[in-house]
């Protein structure tokens, strides 16, 4: 135990000052994060008249319906499939892009410039970036045109757009940045002397990767994973648009439920999803002290 890090030993004055500084943040998060979550939790126990009216009460009917429905399992399997595929691709691409920028680009200014080049699209519209795949992946899109011209295929490929493949492509396109930034941060903190020492001791590049770079990037990987997993599991519009309505995920079903005013069912499924998400995130948090990682 480090005495300085223990909050129990802080003075009342420091507590008051701390709370004064964060009070505006709390005043926004309580009504717009805590309260809505509680409202959804409450709504999941309510009964509905089927027209959007909610009858306060306590019934587990919505949960029973959801847990008994074969659709729920299908939706979760689809969501997990998208999450795992997206996670694998964003991790591989994100890790090696970060590795390239930190360890292979010799000029630091150039490395920062290339890093910014990767981050700029993050600040633009996700929906626009998603629909920008249409001219490429469509039936008459560039990829089909190119493949036809090369004689690789005779018929245009239909699986490129409005398919599960398109959904995963759109996710990877949007979310790789969430892996690159935290992994880049952890890698940039690795002391280069450590790697020189490893080379001096006769380690191969693969050994350095396996024994130094990967273990020391773990916290970045964990942070990136939290971002990617929570965004994919909470997404509905990429699934809806890029699958052309052919696939659904937990939240896109939630969206349909809300559309037909089935609030209790939607709320129960949201509560279930939140529990799953909390379980996954806390599992990841056991491997890394996120707060120390971010604040120090």
């Amino acid at each position, binding site marked *: 135990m480090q005495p300085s890090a*223990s*909050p129990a030993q802080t003075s009342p004055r*420091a*507590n008051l*000052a*701390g709370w004064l*500084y964060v009070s*505006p*943040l*709390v005043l*926004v*998060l309580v*009504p*717009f*994060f805590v*309260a*809505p*979550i509680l*409202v959804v939790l409450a*709504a999941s126990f309510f009964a509905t008249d089927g027209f959007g009216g*909610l009858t306060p009460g306590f019934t587990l009917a919505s949960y029973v319906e959801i847990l008994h429905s074969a659709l729920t399992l299908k939706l979760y399997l689809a969501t997990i499939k998208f999450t795992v595929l997206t996670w694998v691709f964003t991790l591989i691409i994100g890790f090696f*892009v970060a590795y*390239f*920028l930190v*360890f*292979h680009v*010799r000029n630091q200014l150039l490395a920062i410039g290339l890093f*910014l080049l*990767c981050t700029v699209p993050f*600040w*633009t*519209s*996700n*929906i*626009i970036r998603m*629909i*920008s*795949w*249409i*001219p*490429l992946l469509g039936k008459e*899109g560039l990829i089909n*045109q190119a493949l036809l011209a090369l004689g690789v295929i005779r018929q245009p490929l239909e699986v490129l757009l409005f398919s599960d493949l398109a959904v995963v492509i759109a996710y990877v*396109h949007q979310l790789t940045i969430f892996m690159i930034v935290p992994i880049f941060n952890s890698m940039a903190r690795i002391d*280069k002397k450590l790697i*020189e020492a490893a080379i001096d001791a006769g380690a191969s*590049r693969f050994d350095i990767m396996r024994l130094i770079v990967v273990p020391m990037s773990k916290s970045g990987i964990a942070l990136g994973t939290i971002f990617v997993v929570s965004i994919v*599991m*909470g997404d*509905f*519009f990429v699934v809806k*648009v890029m699958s052309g309505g052919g696939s659904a995920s937990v*939240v896109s079903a939630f969206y349909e439920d809300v559309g037909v005013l089935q609030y209790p069912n939607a*709320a129960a499924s949201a509560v279930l999803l*939140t529990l799953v*998400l909390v379980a996954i*995130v806390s599992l990841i948090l056991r491997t890394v002290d*996120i*707060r120390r990682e971010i*604040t120090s």
Partner: protein
Amino acid sequence: MSAVTADMRDTIAPPSTKAIAPSKGNRPWTFYALATLFALYVLALYGPMICIYILSFQDIRGGLVFPMKGQSLHWFVDLFTQVRTGDVKGSFDRSIKLAVIVTIITVVISFLAGLGFRKRFWGDGVVFYMMIGSLVAPGLVLGLGTGLLFQALGLNASWYTSALGAQLSWTLPFGVLVMFAVMSRYNRAWDEAAYDLGASRWQTIWLVIVPVLAPGIVAVALFGFTLSYDEFARSLQTAGSLNTLPLEIWSMTLNVTSPSLYALGTVTTIISFIVIGASLGSIVLIQKRRGRAAEG
């Protein structure tokens, strides 16, 4: 043995450079492999977006895919004059106004929270994890909860009340996290120096901390503006009867199949790029001025 290490030392980068790769002489094959990966990533990142910008400049015969049919500004005019594409101009105005309000609030609250989190205080973990929760919670679920909450309280949902709050629940966690990164480089001895010279707490914040952290504060503003301007999932159930721009784009993706969708993508991306350029430009400018002041 010593000859071997001496020989190796020549091929190892001196401590001042970033790369493990030798700073002189041949690059390892991994450099070329990863450079290719990086180039492909950047191509996939920007390629599709560039396609839709080009396609938005077609004439009236234009379609959603290549080849390009003529060149004109037809679809941009169409976007702002046609009724069938919806109220683009109005939603544009609202989104910009909302983004400005969100930016100001995000900067102020994130800055104060950043100051608060510099010291441990009783209950700081609760606030921290509340913030992380707000970041990873599915946006659509939070939006629905906020919408239902307003309904239950008998308040009308609108873009400047419920949607404003819902967007802050998204921009504030990012703002505070960026603030953490910025604060970690702030030396607390500068505070002490200011106090020793007779500065009050507010003078220290206003005359020392704010100017020192100015580039980071600009970065928080960049996050606040762009995340709000492009925010979609949390606004969907909270914006009330008048759409913001991403909601307008969303309804267009579902029913408009002309290049005016691409034109809207081009326009909104130009706005984003102007904001990104102005932010990054002013950060560079501040740093440069500092460099000159330090030299002179």
